[in-house]
């Protein structure tokens, strides 16, 4: 008669034998399945480099799943694509990879600079950087993030989480002259002053008396060979309206102050509304133009774009006319910003006027040698490897190497335990 202890022992031995058999059977089934469906290798971004070498030289997995914590370098991305072309199914996942794109455009401005545009999901944190370090950081709004940078490096990176998109300046611009036509008043004077101080070469045409002109340069012909943009401050420019229209239609830029709009009906983005005096007297650095009077742009043409508003009134509007661009500025007496504004007012007024010009100015481009860039890293992955797949489960459980180690360990322990139990019982 067997004692209870012996019965328990025998049961335990049986269980251990059962475990061994189950493990062996399971391993057999798993191996057959893996053969049928192909071996799936799971790697992370950290392991990718080593894995690529392995897959290329020693193994050829049927399917690989790459869990990307950050976009792979261009070479690695191409490598994966080559692997895919060689017959391995390459899939990738990356929940942290937010779609990001960056573009950089040189500004038409004697002070140089560039406009950087970053596309990123709304509220995503975007960090702009160049070789000298962080330039700016902000949360993207509904339109992404855009910034005007005074002295950009050769390349600019936009970091959104782990994704870094890189753009490089590829063009240099040839700046032409500006032509300012206006009456002898403060707006004309300070507009010319600001643009010249900014570094623009300006031709001016200011009629003081019927036969007396304050002239700088000669208006022999208004064309894109000479002028980057024309600024018409008031109806003084009306006598040149035909020439200016031809100029715009051949690619030139025109900045119209609202008082001049009636003379350029075919070009202007809209009509000049009635004068609205600002209720705010003091010009503050943060919102300087709030204190300026406006003749709003009204009755916008179908193709006009409102660039700035003050309440319901459009204060800046633009449209394309053929290859040319026209911008209408509703702010009358913007010179007051320079004279009466805060500490930075002269610089900011200058920069604002330069902005108006930069938006429309014609500037021939020349391509320059640019360093490598990666402006749309996530899209590039999709383009080469297809869309992402859902992130895999805890891969450690399915890692064949680890699995084998666990199985072997448990197998051995079970066998040893079963053997030891029998031996101790005196059974062989």
């Amino acid at each position, binding site marked *: 008669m067997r004692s209870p202890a012996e019965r328990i022992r025998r049961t335990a031995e049986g269980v251990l034998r059962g475990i061994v058999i189950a493990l062996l059977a399971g391993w057999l089934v798993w191996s057959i399945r893996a053969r049928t469906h192909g071996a799936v290798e799971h790697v992370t971004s950290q392991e990718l480099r080593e894995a690529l070498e392995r897959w290329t030289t020693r193994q050829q997995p049927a399917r690989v799943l790459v869990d990307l914590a950050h976009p792979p370098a261009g070479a690695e991305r191409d490598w994966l694509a080559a692997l895919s072309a060689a017959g391995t199914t390459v899939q990738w996942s990356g929940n942290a990879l937010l779609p990001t794109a960056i573009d950089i*455009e040189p500004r038409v401005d*004697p*002070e140089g600079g560039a*406009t950087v*545009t970053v596309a990123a999901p709304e509220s995503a944190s975007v960090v*702009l950087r160049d*070789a*000298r*370090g962080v*330039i*700016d950081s*902000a949360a993207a*709004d509904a*339109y*992404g*993030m*855009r*910034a*005007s*940078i*005074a*002295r950009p490096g050769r390349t600019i990176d936009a970091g959104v989480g782990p994704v870094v998109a890189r753009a490089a300046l590829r063009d240099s611009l040839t700046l032409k002259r500006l032509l300012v036509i206006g009456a002898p008043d403060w707006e004309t004077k300070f507009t*010319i*002053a600001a643009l*010249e*101080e*900014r*570094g623009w*070469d*300006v031709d*001016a045409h*200011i009629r003081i*008396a*019927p*036969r*007396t*002109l*304050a*002239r*700088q340069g000669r208006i022999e012909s208004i064309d894109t060979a000479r002028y980057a943009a024309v600024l018409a401050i008031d109806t003084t420019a009306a006598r040149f309206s035909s020439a200016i229209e031809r100029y715009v239609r051949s690619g030139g830029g025109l900045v119209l102050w609202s008082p001049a709009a009636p003379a350029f009906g075919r070009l202007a983005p809209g009509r000049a509304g009635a004068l609205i005096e600002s209720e705010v007297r003091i010009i503050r650095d943060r919102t300087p133009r709030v204190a300026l009077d406006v003749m709003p742009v009204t009755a916008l043409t179908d193709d006009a*774009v409102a*660039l*700035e508003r003050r309440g319901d009134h459009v204060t*800046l509007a*633009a449209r394309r006319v053929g290859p040319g661009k026209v911008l209408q500025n509703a702010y009358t007496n913007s010179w007051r910003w320079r004279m009466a504004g805060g500490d930075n007012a002269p610089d900011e007024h200058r*920069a*604002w006027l330069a*902005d*108006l010009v*930069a*938006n429309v100015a014609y500037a021939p481009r020349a391509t320059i040698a640019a360093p490598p860039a990666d402006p749309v890293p996530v899209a590039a992955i999709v383009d080469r490897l297809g869309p992402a797949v859902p992130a895999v489960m805890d891969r450690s459980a399915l890692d064949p190497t680890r699995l084998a180690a666990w199985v072997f360990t448990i197998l051995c322990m079970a066998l040893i335990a079963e053997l030891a139990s029998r031996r101790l019982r005196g059974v062989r």
Partner: protein
Amino acid sequence: MTALQIVRRTRVTLALVVVTTAVLTGFAAGGGVIVLAGLLQLVVALPSLVPALLVPVATAAGLTGCAIVLWRNRTVVSVQHVALWLEERLPELRYALVTAIDPAIAPADRYPALHARVRASDTSSAVRTAWRRPITRSLTAALTVAALLAVLQPQELLGTGGTDLLRRVGNGENEVLANRLEGVIARVSPPAYARMDDSTVEDPVTVAALVGSRVTFQGRGPSSGVTAIVDSTSTEAGEAGRGWTIALQMDTAPAVVTLRDREYRRLVVLETVVDSVPAVRLRLPARDTTYQTVPRGRMTVEAEITDDIGLAHGWFEYMVSTGSAEVFETRTSQGRRIGLDNARTGTLREVIDLDTMRLAPGTVFHIRAVALDHNDVTGPGKGVSDTRTLRIAEPEDSTSINPTPPLPIDSMWMSQRRLNMMTDTLIRMAPQLDRQELTHRSSAYGNAQDEIRQRALAVISILEDDAVGGTFQTQTSTKLREAADLMYEARVNLAITMPDSAMPHMIRVLEILDEIRLANRYYLRGIIQPAAVNVARVRLTGEDPATEEPRRPRAELADERAALAERIAHAASIAREQPDAAVDSLVYIRVAALRLAPDVADALASAAALLRRGESVDTALDRARRALEPPPARIRGPVEWSGIGN
């Protein structure tokens, strides 16, 4: 050998041992001093005096050690003492040797046994035993010191002093000077007026001091060949004890001084600290005032003054202006000078007797406070307060709102001129005119003259009766009176058909009116009533000069911060290959940055220090360049267009 010969031989041996021991001991002593200095140098920085004194001190120690040994063993020269020394070590002699060495006492032929006993004694072994120990000890000490010297290698310690010693005592040629710009110190002596203590900056990179301070650089080594260059002015170093010295004056603008010693160079920034002018605030009177009546009595004036260094004295300035129209007179006076005892704050207070100021209606009384500091370098700094203006109103000041009739003097002048021309014509035409016509016209001209006279009298009445005040109006009215009298004469002559007699008076009237019109713009004090011009009526009725003078363009504004950033970029680009040149560049750039961007100046100083230590400065310089850039301008809104900054 006789006993005496034996003793003499022993004496020589012992003397050699003593001398050898003395030399070895002297070496050990002198070397021991150097070893001690070498050991100390490993632990602490020795003052610059130590190397200079080391060799003489070591020499002295060595000689002293040697002398001590010789002195202690001086008896070795005495035969008797040597004999006694042998007796002490060979007791079996029983004073036979001492006796035998004196032939007068124990001649050899009379005491052969004595001498034989001496000859039989083993003096050599006694001597051998004797010299081993001292020689061994002193040799051991000497070798130990020599070994320590070989390990410590205090060449540098010896070198400086040795070189100097050599220079002083022997051949100074072919010596190699160390870098005399190492271990430089700068002593700053502020100008005397500042009454500040001198200060010292060791190993200076920047020396900040008041304008006019004396900055003295001092270093080790001879002065010949050491110079300091500021801008393009070079100053040679002078001797200062065992070192060199160069004295410079702190100028009004920051500068870089280049210290040169042969191929060695060192840059030091002289950072100017400017002595500010005193800040003066007038407390009393507290504000500008207009008095309706002439104020009398006493008035207190008070001012508060502060200065960064020290105040010298202050006073009040008074200006009393009287007059009106075109003639004014101003009397300036000062209150007493009040000493401020070099304090940094002070108060001026004075009570003025207004009666002595001779104030009157129409007077304008200006008061301000002035203070000087003690700066006798760039001139005393003069601080002034705001000026208080006290006006004493004229009776009509508050009521002279009446729009001035359009300058009656002008219209009178025009009328008189026209009348003169008509009268002149009448005189020329008189022969052709009949008497009646002549009378008629002359009478009419007389009436016209009288009408002008009435206008003149009206103006005189305004000027005199309304008490506009001021001496000149009285002059105007006096002149007008003269003109009016002449008009009367002219009018009378015209009335009696004597236009040629009237003409001289009329000419003189015109001259007087012209004088008054051109030189004497009388006006009524008070609010200007802007007169409106009928712009539409006069528009373009004048000549158009048709000028073609071209407009000169404005120059682009220099972006000094961008230029500074460019210079930093250049320094960064050469930092790896030419760190010394990069450090020099950063020093010069820092001087420029002191004015433009003080925060960047500090960053550049840190970067220069990093570079001197051989560390990377890329990050530091990138940050400095970034600080000099305008911040990025965010562009909000849709991307249909290139975008407008906010």
